[in-house]
């Protein structure tokens, strides 16, 4: 006896490729985004050029522009000012959105190799620290001043050695004795009441003076440089002289030639020994960086506190660091390729100042090199190739390094991604992981894999290309995007998207993402993986309808797959919308041994108009040999059609505003007797679907005996 049954998936979930899989999972879910309001999947997506009003890809068409190696958006003023930085062809540019032009900030930088780490951007206060492991790390102070807002990170050299001018006898010629005060000899330049200029040398005949100086620089970030080498020693023996009717021992000051600091220096600090001493004390701060001399008239008792030791500020310990992160007022930097397991940290609030002993050497060898840094609650996560360590503590009480997990790490620093209210996600060799919780207040720090069911993609992934994998999270879309290379590709050809509201993944194909980030409003800003439209490119007249790429682009609600060439030179035109595909899980209806006769598939959609969906039905895990289940309009059955855009039937000089209405469209599946059933639809028309119901009958027929 036949029995009619239904299998209902009320709300479709994301991709799960595996056996077994739940009925509400998808075997394929390409180019869809999730709407939490309706629990529907919509294909209202695509990508468009950054300046949608510009001709072709302006302003990214300069002759030196190539594929975009990295991109970063640094917002300020509540998003009114956003610094769009991108790197191409060994050059760092800032995009000026107001003038629709690009400003070259740095050139002659190394271009990342195909398997090398991408450039890293890490905010620290009013600076953006930019490092790539090959060129010198820099600090960029975002303000539209161009390259004069760029400063070296750390002190690359110790200050030049100051020199003290020799002092001759009072009233000798040429005049090198500078009287300190007028209380001994009348007519001097200094007043007796001016206690500040007391004079350095002694007050009694025969008093010997012996001094030396050091100098340091202070930059606009508040960092003090290492001390210079000691100056030449200056010695003087006091003598008595008579001027007119007055006899006495005049005191002198010293004139010091001081070095000029590098760009960004706002002051120079002068340190001096006491008479015949070897310890240096604060003498004065020259709050500018232009004068080349300083006159010192201070007595020993007027000197300030002891100078910092030479180990308190050293020259930049990691001049080609790759990863940086601000944590507890300090800037943490890795040791670069030359010292890949060393982690330095700066003095608090001084990102350029490093003590000689402010570093950690990471312990376990199996953990591998440092591959990323990410602050998380009260800890700094130190990602390594196959381990994760934690930095705890603070600069006042001292930092400590503790291992967190062994065996799981990352090679994709650009895929370490904070997802609000969920945790820190990162991409390991075998999937996407999530770190959640904390170590304070009784909480536990937990690690779990969230890409369950996506092993298929990671089995096919190009591990060597993982340093080029990129990711970004959008609070606006509530999606985390990951792009990486699979199937031997040398560029990112696979996209997977974690939908926060659904806690499952979908796939993205056809997105040429070389690098990606989000702006202040949560728009995904990406860089093309190729540039074939720059001035002077060959061929200069590509075939019509081949993909055209160049510069930055935006993942938006514009339903188009970027641009293609028009067939006339390098001019471009809009491409058609992306193709979106849904493929259901294999459904055995609860008993794998029973034959089922599938009659209908009811697709729950939101009505979209006269566009059509074509469904294919499959049986018994064979994706070849599908059966067409018909093509249906996205209108409600048994109701008048809703008016649609650009149809003469409804063109009455007005807009027919409509609501998207929940409806079910029935597809008839003919003669489908199977053990397991699946269906697929693929469209480049707008579509929003929620779930489905499969109606089938069972007459008790069981699977036949196996073949011998």
């Amino acid at each position, binding site marked *: 006896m036949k029995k009619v049954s239904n299998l209902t998936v009320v709300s479709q979930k994301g991709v799960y490729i595996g056996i077994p899989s739940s009925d509400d999972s998808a075997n394929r879910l390409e180019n869809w985004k999730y709407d939490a309001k309706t629990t529907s999947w919509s294909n*209202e997506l*695509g990508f468009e050029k950054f300046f949608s009003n510009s001709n072709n890809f302006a302003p990214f068409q300069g002759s030196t522009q190539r594929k975009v190696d990295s991109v970063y958006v640094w917002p300020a003023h509540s998003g009114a*000012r*956003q610094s769009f930085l991108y790197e191409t062809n060994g050059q760092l540019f800032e995009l000026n959105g*107001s003038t629709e032009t690009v400003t070259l900030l740095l050139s002659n930088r190394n271009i990342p190799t195909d398997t090398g780490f991408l450039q890293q951007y890490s905010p620290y206060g009013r600076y953006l620290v930019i490092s790539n492991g090959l060129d010198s790390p820099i600090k960029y102070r975002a303000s539209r001043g161009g390259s004069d807002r760029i400063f070296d990170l750390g002190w690359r050299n110790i200050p030049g050695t100051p020199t003290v001018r020799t002092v001759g006898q009072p009233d000798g010629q040429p005049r090198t004795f500078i009287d300190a005060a007028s209380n001994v000899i009348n007519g001097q330049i200094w007043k007796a009441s001016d206690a500040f200029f007391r004079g350095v040398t002694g007050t009694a005949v025969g008093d010997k003076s012996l001094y030396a100086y050091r100098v340091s620089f202070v930059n606009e970030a508040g960092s003090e440089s290492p001390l210079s080498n000691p100056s030449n020693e200056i010695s003087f023996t006091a003598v008595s002289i008579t001027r007119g009717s007055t006899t006495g021992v005049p005191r002198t000051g010293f004139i010091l030639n001081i070095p000029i600091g590098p760009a960004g220096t706002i002051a120079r600090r002068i340190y001096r020994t006491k008479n015949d001493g070897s310890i240096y004390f604060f003498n004065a701060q020259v709050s500018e960086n232009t004068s080349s001399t300083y006159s010192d008239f201070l007595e020993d008792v007027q000197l300030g506190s002891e100078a910092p030791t030479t180990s308190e500020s050293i020259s930049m310990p990691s001049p080609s660091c790759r990863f940086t992160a601000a944590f507890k007022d300090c800037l943490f930097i890795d040791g670069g390729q030359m010292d890949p397991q060393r982690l330095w940290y700066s003095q608090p609030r001084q990102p350029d100042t490093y003590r000689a002993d402010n570093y950690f050497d990471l312990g376990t060898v199996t953990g591998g090199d440092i591959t990323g840094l990410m602050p998380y609650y009260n800890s700094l996560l130190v990602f390594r190739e196959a381990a994760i360590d934690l930095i705890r503590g603070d600069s006042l009480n001292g930092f400590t390094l503790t291992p967190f997990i062994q065996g799981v790490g990352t090679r994709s620093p650009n895929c370490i991604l904070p997802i609000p209210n969920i945790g820190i996600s990162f991409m390991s060799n075998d999937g996407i992981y999530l770190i959640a919780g904390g170590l304070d207040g009784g909480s536990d720090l937990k690690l779990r894999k969230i890409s369950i069911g996506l092993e298929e993609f990671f089995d096919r992934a190009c591990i060597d290309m993982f340093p080029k994998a990129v990711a970004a999270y959008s609070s606006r879309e509530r999606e985390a995007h990951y792009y990486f290379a699979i199937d031997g590709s040398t560029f990112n050809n696979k996209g997977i998207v974690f939908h926060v509201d659904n806690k499952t993944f979908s796939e993205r194909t056809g997105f040429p993402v070389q690098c990606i980030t989000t702006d202040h409003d949560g728009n995904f800003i990406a860089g093309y993986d190729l540039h074939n439209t720059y001035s002077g490119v060959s061929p200069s007249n590509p075939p019509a309808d081949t993909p055209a790429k160049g510069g930055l682009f935006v993942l938006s*609600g514009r339903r188009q797959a970027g641009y293609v060439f028009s067939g006339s030179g390098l001019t471009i035109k809009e491409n058609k919308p992306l193709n979106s595909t849904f493929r259901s899980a294999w459904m055995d209806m609860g008993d794998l041994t029973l034959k089922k006769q599938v009659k209908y598939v009811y697709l729950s959609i939101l009505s979209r108009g006269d566009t059509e969906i074509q469904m294919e039905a499959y049986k018994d895990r064979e994706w070849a040999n599908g059966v067409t289940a018909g093509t249906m309009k996205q209108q409600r059955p048994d109701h008048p059609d809703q008016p*649609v855009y650009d149809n003469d039937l409804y063109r009455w000089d007005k*807009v*027919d505003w409509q609501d998207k209405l929940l409806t079910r469209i029935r597809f008839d599946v003919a003669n489908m007797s199977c053990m397991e059933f699946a269906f697929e639809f693929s469209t480049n028309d707008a579509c929003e679907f929620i779930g489905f119901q499969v109606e089938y009958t069972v007459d008790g027929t069981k699977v036949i005996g196996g073949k011998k």
Partner: protein
Amino acid sequence: MAYRWNKNTIENKDIVESREFDQAHNEFVSLINGGMDRENLPIECVGYPEMKKQSFGKAHLSGNVFTPIAYADQDGVYGTGFSNNNTRGNRIVGLRYGQDPINEGDSFFEVATNSFDCQEGMLHIHWKCNAYMPFYYAFWQAYTSNTVARKRYQWKINIDGVTVYDSSAICQSFFTTNIATMIPISAGNHKVSVSLRYPARGDDADNQVLLQYWGGNLFCHNLYR
């Protein structure tokens, strides 16, 4: 800089959902309302080259409005001399009773119109016109019961048929009218019209000219919100 890109795409064969449309539109509204500051709009950044024509308003003019030739008939009473040897030199022409548009008088007839697309904002309307009104029969005949015409006229401004301005009665023989008003206006096509009323016939004949107007300018300025 605050940037906005497409949130939705309206395509052929799709229904047009008002909510989606509003959301997409709001992207830009929020940008203009608060997403820009001195970084984007420095001092004196907006000059004449940056301002496109009709960015802030739109003006329409219907000029040189005069008594239609078809209704401008010669006066049969006034200006004919004793010898009647120069009938053309001092005869006047204009509107008369007994024919369009005055007919028997005391009803408004349309003189000038301006029809155009407005944006939400204010609409400033200015009507200027010269007119001449012969003064014969201007008074009651003393010690008789003979009635004569009450000589005056009145202007009215309408928008889409609704009166927005009524002038007082104008009694001067030669007079240049200048009337103006400003009202809030909604987006869409609107018709501005100026109408004229002449009193009902009293003791007047059909062949006497009542009114001549010329040089009328109907100026409308839609100031955008």
